[in-house]
């Protein structure tokens, strides 16, 4: 195995294979950074082209897209407050707050460093512990999976700033949107109002475009350029490449333990089917906030929060590949497409794959490792370019976002209806934002809704409607207790403390 792995790394030294890696990495960087275009879309578009490629080269290119696409979702999140991909949503909260404080370069640098560390840890775990860890993940029963999704849903809601009731309502709206279309367990259409368009449900891409790109464009059109100028005053500074290297005190502020803990969370969640980068980043962020020395900085520009989110979502890449390669279970949309790449080349993902074809898969492991290093190098190479995203002409910027995102929706589905859907969700998101309903819980509701419902219903079918099934499995019980602890630590205790302080202040 070690010899085959070494050969995998050596194969990257071949100019053509290396070019595929760099090409895939740059493609992932562009697709991840442009709101509305995702790594999933990039790999999906690449799929037909892999027919003419050697399987190892195709997997190397896919690995480059995957790692870069997950990372670069944070770039426009930090600079423009529009995450390029759903996995960058949490990073956006902290990163854009830092950007407004004039710490955009450090935020971008920290994001890249954390992503690199997460990616490296995820890949090392993938290489060394693939089979034993995936067998543990497979022990998760349906009630355990439901409790995990519930933990993610509750976490996202309680970490939102502002009214808890409004955040919960936003989450419920997201879950409601996810119920539109075919029922996940029975061949019945729901909430389709007789329209064949609605039968297919609300696709993730128009939902993401609507919630972020369309909503942002509508919101910006109502803001005076004077406001933007005020926000940008803090950023007037000529960027130098070394400014993107995170300062030692910032790295100390985050702490080595935080990087490792968040990466491990990312790997574990990546391994669970239905996990994915968004859930990994939300849970790692919530855990970082719970254990933070200064939790009050979260939401206002916290390096700890930003690093936790970014380490975990890139560590997820390695984790998600584990069940795919060892058991044939894709962990997210990207690994589902990688499944397709393998099938196209006659390889069936499953327990026999690594045993019989490790030599073919090894370059992909090596590519994930090298692409993780590329992530940090990319911010040094293109950092000044990223930063200028916030200084370019507003007219050009929003015309670009407005066109590419809407045409991107069309290109992903060839459906004019999905463009209308993106607009409708964008208008709803704009109104929600205007009236203090956070948008991110709604997005998580849309993403996690199908899993939430399926795991809930399957569990209740098994238990014949008895909800105590969620308390009978040890893993589920632990996750539910963890959910309760999170609610206590992140909402109830701070609210009580605030009330006590209010009561203590003499009138």
């Amino acid at each position, binding site marked *: 195995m070690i010899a085959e792995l070494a050969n995998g790394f050596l194969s990257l030294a071949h100019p053509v294979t290396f070019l595929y890696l760099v090409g895939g990495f740059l493609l992932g960087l562009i697709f991840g950074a442009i709101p509305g275009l995702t790594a999933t879309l990039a790999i999906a578009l690449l799929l037909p082209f892999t027919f003419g490629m050697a399987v190892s080269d195709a997997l190397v290119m896919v690995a480059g897209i995957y790692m870069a696409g997950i990372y670069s979702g944070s770039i426009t999140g930090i600079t423009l407050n529009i995450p390029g991909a759903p996995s960058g949503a949490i990073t956006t909260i902290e990163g854009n707050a830092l950007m407004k404080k004039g710490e955009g370069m450090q935020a971008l640098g920290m994001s890249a460093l954390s992503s690199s560390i997460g990616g490296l840890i995820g890949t090392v775990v993938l290489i060394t512990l693939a089979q034993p860890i995936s067998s543990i993940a497979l022990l998760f029963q349906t009630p355990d999976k439901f409790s995990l999704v519930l933990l993610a849903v509750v976490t996202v809601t309680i970490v939102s700033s502002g009214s808890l009731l409004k955040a919960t309502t936003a989450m419920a*709206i997201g879950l*409601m949107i996810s119920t539109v279309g075919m029922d996940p367990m029975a061949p019945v259409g729901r909430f389709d109002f007789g329209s064949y368009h609605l039968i297919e449900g609300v696709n993730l891409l128009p939902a993401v475009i609507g919630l972020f790109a369309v909503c942002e464009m509508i919101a910006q059109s109502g803001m005076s350029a004077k406001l933007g100028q005020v926000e940008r005053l803090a950023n007037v500074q000529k960027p130098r490449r070394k400014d993107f290297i995170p300062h030692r005190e910032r790295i100390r502020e985050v702490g080595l333990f935080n990087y490792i803990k968040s990466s491990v969370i990312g790997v574990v969640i990546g391994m669970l089917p239905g996990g994915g980068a968004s859930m990994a980043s939300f849970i790692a962020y919530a855990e970082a906030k719970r254990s933070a020395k200064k939790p009050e900085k979260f939401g206002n520009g916290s390096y700890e929060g930003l690093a936790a989110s970014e380490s975990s979502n890139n560590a997820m890449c390695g984790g998600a590949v584990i069940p795919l390669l060892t058991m044939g279970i894709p962990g997210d949309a990207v690994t589902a497409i990688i499944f397709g790449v393998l099938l196209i080349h006659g390889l069936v993902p499953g327990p026999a794959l690594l045993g019989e074809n490790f030599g073919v898969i090894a370059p992909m492991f090596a590519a994930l490792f090298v692409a993780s290093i590329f992530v940090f190098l990319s911010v040094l190479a293109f950092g000044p370019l990223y930063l200028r995203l916030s200084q370019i002409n507003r007219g*050009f910027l929003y015309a670009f976002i407005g066109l590419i995102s809407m045409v991107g929706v069309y290109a992903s589905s060839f459906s*004019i209806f999905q463009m209308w859907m993106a607009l409708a969700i964008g208008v709803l998101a704009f109104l929600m934002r205007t009236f203090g309903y956070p948008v991110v819980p709604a997005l998580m509701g849309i993403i996690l809704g199908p899993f939430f419902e399926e795991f809930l219903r399957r569990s209740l079918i098994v238990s014949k409607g008895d909800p105590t099934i969620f308390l009978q499995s040890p893993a589920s019980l632990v996750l539910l207790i963890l959910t309760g602890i999170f609610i206590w630590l992140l909402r109830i205790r701070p609210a009580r403390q605030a009330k006590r302080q209010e009561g203590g202040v003499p009138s």
Partner: protein
Amino acid sequence: MTRSLNGQVLFAFALLALNTIYASQIFQMERPFASGEPGPAFLPMLLCGFVYIAMIRILLTEWRAEPAARPAVMQSDVIPKLQLVGPVGAIALIALFIIGFFYAGYVVAASLYTFTIAFFFNHEQNADWKRALVLGVVTSVVITSFGWLFFVKLFDLYLPMWEF
């Protein structure tokens, strides 16, 4: 606007209306656990009930709250009532783009769409319509061409063209 009918209240009523439309579909499904299983209506029913309760609580909170001072909004020197005109215009423009994209095709719709966005933002920023016009045309040509090269030439995707 009075406290009993401010934006928060109107939005809560709009969500209540949408929730009611959603709820109307639940009654067309089988009742949860009617056949011993939760069924397709189970989660929607829970969500619907929650949103009704949440909206009522939000409305009560809003009606009981002391009237808050309206936050100062930075006004535009060029476009009056920008915070209303801008979003309404943007929504209308995106809707027109989708219609134009379908009927007139990518090139025409994308050119006009990007030109209008660029003209609007540049005019609002500089109050100079001639400069905004030039920037609008340049932006329109550059972005429309980029989109064409990116989607059609690079990825060989189909985009509609003059399909009356």
